[in-house]
């Protein structure tokens, strides 16, 4: 019961969104320095100050930063004095937004600041992500995320769900759309390149990059005061699947489908979908699972194939979908975030603007 079935449930909206320019390396700035401009921007857009915020929640990963408790330093960027009501998930910021949404539903706060960040550049992110696999049986083999995504892509091709030219077209469309997104890392015509792991070529894979994002949530009338056209969260839900790839059908995403159903995505058509699909093949899986046809504008921002700052890329999907509603370019949008190997965990939010 994650949709607004509870009696008297509060209306909650995304009222502001900001993100960094996503770049291959950001050696010259710390995480706090990368984050602070984004925090200032998102607060400026609402006229709020950090002290006005009722609840703050962030998402990040120590393994990207290469040290324990890395998020404690990022908190300095919020200016956490006097003490704030604050929490943190060791997940993509989309789940930090979910925690904040729950907190607002309890009535304990009327506004929330959500942020997340990730710097992949200091290490080898393909190696680092192998450490999130089963530590006894899988991680010792060091299968990296590109290799695992390639298994998924090959399964899709074998099932007749796609082919290599179709995958290339996903990448080309994403980077072409990203020309309108000044924050994106890969824009315009990008070579499909050589095979990275068959059947995936470099063009099927996301750029490795650093970046941060922030969102402000507000309830009811407060949202209307802070934003001309709030992006109301009509439903939000997330589900996880088994970890072992051998027990999953990699051509399908039952967890994304279930999350979408619980979020109310199938009740009426959406006009926009921001999908967190770091690999072209994963867009194929998600389009099928979510029932998105050609009438739906998918990843007008360019999506994760144009910029994939790990831990922020999912929150950016919600932010991009909301921003389109703010601008009047969408009336009902689906936003999706993922975590884990081959789309193991998926979050779906349905956002709507007021009728025009």
């Amino acid at each position, binding site marked *: *019961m*994650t949709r607004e079935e*509870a*009696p*008297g*449930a*509060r209306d909650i909206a995304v009222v502001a969104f900001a993100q960094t320019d996503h770049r291959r390396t950001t050696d010259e700035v710390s995480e706090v320095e990368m984050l602070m401009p984004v925090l200032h921007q998102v607060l400026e857009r609402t006229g709020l100050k950090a002290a006005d915020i009722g609840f703050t929640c962030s998402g990040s*990963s*120590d*393994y990207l930063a*290469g*040290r*324990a*408790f890395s*998020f*404690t*330093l990022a*908190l*300095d960027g919020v200016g*956490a*004095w*006097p*003490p*704030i*009501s*604050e*929490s*943190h*998930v*060791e*997940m993509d910021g989309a*789940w930090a937004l979910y*925690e904040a949404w*729950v*907190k607002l*539903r*309890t*009535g*304990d706060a009327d506004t929330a600041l959500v942020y997340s960040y990730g710097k992949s550049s200091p290490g080898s992110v393909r190696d*680092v*992500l192998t*450490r*999130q*696999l*089963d*530590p*006894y049986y899988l991680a010792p083999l060091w299968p990296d995320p590109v290799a695992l995504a390639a298994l998924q892509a090959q399964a899709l091709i074998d099932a007749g769900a796609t082919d290599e030219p179709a995958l290339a077209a996903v990448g080309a469309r994403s980077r072409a759309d990203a020309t309108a997104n000044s924050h994106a890392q890969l824009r315009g015509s990008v070579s499909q390149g050589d095979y990275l792991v068959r059947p995936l070529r470099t063009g099927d894979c996301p750029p490795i990059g650093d970046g941060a994002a922030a969102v402000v949530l507000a309830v009811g009338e407060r949202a209307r005061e802070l934003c001309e056209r709030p992006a109301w969260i009509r439903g939000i839900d*997330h*589900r*996880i*699947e*088994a*970890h*072992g790839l051998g027990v999953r059908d990699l051509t399908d995403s*039952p967890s994304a489908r*279930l999350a979408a159903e619980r979020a109310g995505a199938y009740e009426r058509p959406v006009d926009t979908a921001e999908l967190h699909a770091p690999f072209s093949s994963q867009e194929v899986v998600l389009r099928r699972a979510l029932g998105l046809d050609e009438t739906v504008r998918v990843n007008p921002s360019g999506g994760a194939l144009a910029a994939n700052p790990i831990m922020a890329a999912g929150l950016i999907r919600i932010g991009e979908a909301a921003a389109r509603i703010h601008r009047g370019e969408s009336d009902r949008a689906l936003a999706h975030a993922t975590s*884990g*190997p081959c789309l*193991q*965990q998926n979050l779906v939010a349905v956002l709507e603007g007021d009728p025009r």
Partner: protein
Amino acid sequence: MSKEPVAVVGVGQTKHVAARRDVSIAGLVREAARRALHDAELGWADIEAVVIGKAPDFFEGVMMPELYLADALGAVGKPMMRVHTAGSVGGSTALVAASLVAARVHGTVLTLAFEKQSESNAMWGLSLPIPFQQPLLAGAGGFFAPHVRAYMRRSGAPETVGSLVAYKNRRNALKNPYAHLHEHDITLEKVQASPMLWDPIRYSETCPSSDGAVAMVLTDRAGAARAPRPAAWMHGGAMRSEPTLFAGKDSVSPRAGRDCAADVYRQAGIADPRREIDAVEMYVPFSWYEPMWLENLGFAAEGEGWKLTESGVTELDGDLPVDMSGGVLSTNPIGASGMIRFAEAALQVRGLAGEHQVEGARRVLGHAYGGGSQFFSMWLVGAEPPAS
């Protein structure tokens, strides 16, 4: 919209030990979860969502272990979240799970926290160099010892207070079958004769490194009505954060801790915590933090906390028992330690704490903190449902 009352109907924990070499991480967490389900007389299918917490991933060397633990915790097809707020994480995790019930997003939720410190080396995990930050190479004790010194100077507390706390908590642990340290031959003299590690903190005034997990089943009013054993009801819960280091920070009594306690008392309608709260499971990793937190939590005036300790008020049979389970001083699977405080508070008001039960405990505070005394999470649970 009023919040749904939140009830604890199941508690489970592992026997905490230095190294659980007989189980994987998945085996460890599943053991605690099964015990919590057994207490609630529920099955995996009754659980709608799982909220899991632990301290840094570097402690076991697994990045975002919740992904791999989904199967072991029956979370496949369900929502699963992973909270991380440093040492306070066990408390924060329980509060996130409680919010899911309070907001009526879910009816029954499993929340769990763990640490399997034997898989790696916690001292190493905390000692990675951070650019432009002062190194804390002496471990947590080296960081906290100067703040203890500041407390002693400020309050005039005699040097004996720290050993009294350790002696009390280690004796309490003997009554708790799940506690890590069972020092049957403990004496006050032995504590006082133990080696000085970080002056004024002695070896026996520090916490062990444990493998362990703790789980709770949280549910709504309808779920509590079906529960086979008494429920613990949440009367208030809060989190507060402040930076580790900044000019003007009161490291002896951080404002984040005071504000957090005040928020919990406001929610619970507590005007005088010293009289209205029956017992406290307090996060005391170094013995001197008992008198310090007694003041920070409003149980004693500034500079007076040590007098409660010295006069025996905080003993198991005292007027305000503290750390009846033996506390963090006796059991410290870091990521789980905060939730153990919350869970032990729940056991007390349910009347299910066994040999370390405080007679007639009706309202008990669970407390956790983390980082450089910068993250706080607390809840107050009662034997009766909240009034409103």
